[in-house]
């Protein structure tokens, strides 16, 4: 069994309205050191395989096809186990 940890975030070039709102809230709470805030998604996938090489290719395909919308989102993932 392998575990894939997938992170999906809005591209740097695209405005993230939630991130801007959270940044504003942090500033108003006195956390002035906060620069930009990007809000994303975190997913954990249990994979029924031991083949890391194959898992790498298949998780990439999952991200491209479904988990991220590459028009506005970037993704990265780690394999564990």
């Amino acid at each position, binding site marked *: 069994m392998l575990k894939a940890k997938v992170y999906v975030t809005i591209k740097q070039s695209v405005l993230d309205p939630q991130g801007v709102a959270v940044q504003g809230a942090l500033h108003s709470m006195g956390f002035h050191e906060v620069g930009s805030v990007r809000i994303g998604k975190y997913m954990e996938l249990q994979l029924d395989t031991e083949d890391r090489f194959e898992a790498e290719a298949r998780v990439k395909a999952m991200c491209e096809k*479904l988990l991220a919308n590459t028009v506005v989102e970037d993704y990265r993932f780690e394999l564990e186990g």
Partner: protein
Amino acid sequence: MKFAVLVFPGSNCDIDCYKAVEDTLGEPVDYVWHTATDLSAYDCILVPGGFSYGDYLRCGAISRFAPVMAEVAKAAEAGKFVLGICNGFQILTEAGLLPGTLRRNMSLKFRCHDTLLRVENNGNPFTKEYALGEEINIPIAHGEGNYYCDETTLAKLQANGQIIFRYVNNPNGSLDDIAGISNERGNVVGMMPHPERAVSSLLGSEDGKKMFTSILKTWRDQHESASVR
């Protein structure tokens, strides 16, 4: 002219679309479940609004893999008419049948109110009966209607007349005030506002009617010229 209204788990404007066709045009219309694998009987496919699959992951991300969507792609390829409204627009972009995507509204609020749209292209099969530049009152109801595409795509949309409607007062932060677009060929249209909710003065506006009468007229013109030959 035969219409299909697709129904996904979580669609909630399917009845409005069905009634709009029935009451405005009196043409045959069927509900078609998301598992259907044959749309060959239909001339126009309406992809209605709602929250298909609970908007899980992203709006439209899961619905686009429903079996019926492969048939929608075939119908679009064959030149049949496809109109995606609200969640239907989101599904069509996720499916790659229309460019770009719909982001969270800039205000982070679900916006549900009347909006003024300007008809930017009245050469499209769905807008023939409007005047160019006509301002029409059509309601919106969405949390993710903020249209986005990259600069190259935007330039293409502008150059090809694929921007069909713009907001007069942008309610959601959409790029270039875009409210509705078409594919390059013009037979697939997606829009966030709801023309099917604006087909009777009792509903507050009947400015959406012409979208339905336009598509029927386009189809009849094609059909009649074909039968003359």
